[in-house]
């Protein structure tokens, strides 16, 4: 058996495959830099409720067990009573709320939180979440639908 062997066809195929992998990896890094894999410009989305009462800014792509913020801004009309109330249609994996809610209660389809607010200006609430499992995550904050993809 000849020990000097040459497998040019395989070498070429593998080299082509290597080039494809490099292109894919480079693409992923560019996508990551732009935020397509979370924590960046492409990931962030701001949605205003139909009645204009609140604005929600969130990341459409988040990472499992990694904190990501959802910011809710209540327009001053929504805080006339000195309180801002919001209903979440489904539980979200909250790590922290700033400011902390003054009242929280479970509803049949979700939960409601109340925050102290100054009626003269918009109230801002920052919710830090950390999803526990990968996949699609959908919740409604007030009338704003928040859909997120959780990367593993």
């Amino acid at each position: 058996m000849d020990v000097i062997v040459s497998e040019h066809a395989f070498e070429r195929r593998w080299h082509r495959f290597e080039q494809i992998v490099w292109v894919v990896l480079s693409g992923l890094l560019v996508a990551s830099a732009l935020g397509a894999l979370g924590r960046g410009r492409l990931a962030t989305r701001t949605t205003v409720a139909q009645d204009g009462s609140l604005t929600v800014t969130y990341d459409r792509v988040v990472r499992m067990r990694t904190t990501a913020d959802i910011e809710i801004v209540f327009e001053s009309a929504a805080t006339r009573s000195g309180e801002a109330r919001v209903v979440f249609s489904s539980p979200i994996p909250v790590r922290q709320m700033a400011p902390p809610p003054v009242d929280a209660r479970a509803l049949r389809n979700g939960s409601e939180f109340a925050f102290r607010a100054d009626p003269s200006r918009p109230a801002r609430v920052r919710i830090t979440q950390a999803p526990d499992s990968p996949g699609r995550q959908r919740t409604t904050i007030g009338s704003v639908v928040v859909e997120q993809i959780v990367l593993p």
Partner: protein
Amino acid sequence: METVFKAIAAYFTLLLLLRVTGRRTGKRMAPFEILLIFLLGGQMTQSILAEDRSFTNAFIGVSTITLCHAFVAWIKTKSERATKVIDGVPMLIYANGQWEPERMQMVRIIKEDVLQHAREEGLEREDQIKYVIVERNGALSIIKYDS
């Protein structure tokens, strides 16, 4: 169970990345390769173990990787094609006075590296070389003409 899936994904991801990074030329591991392996391993460890720092979880992760490694070694004994994909094939980069620039580019080796190796083998002239092969582990084999 999550640790098992993550460890399997990490093992095959690293196998692919190290494979496409290219073979090392020379028998010893260069400092940048040690760096690469440490950093790749460190990054993956964090992801595999996540927040569970228990010995049990580490044991599950290590056992999974060991089984993956045994599986890859087994599949290599069963399939020649798998062996080629996992380990690569020897690359003939010089034969009977002809350099193979395309293949040299594929394995990212330059003529000077080969000539240095030839000097280390005690050769004085290029025409003493019959074949140069970059082996699957990156080592250079220089076959001399029969004197």
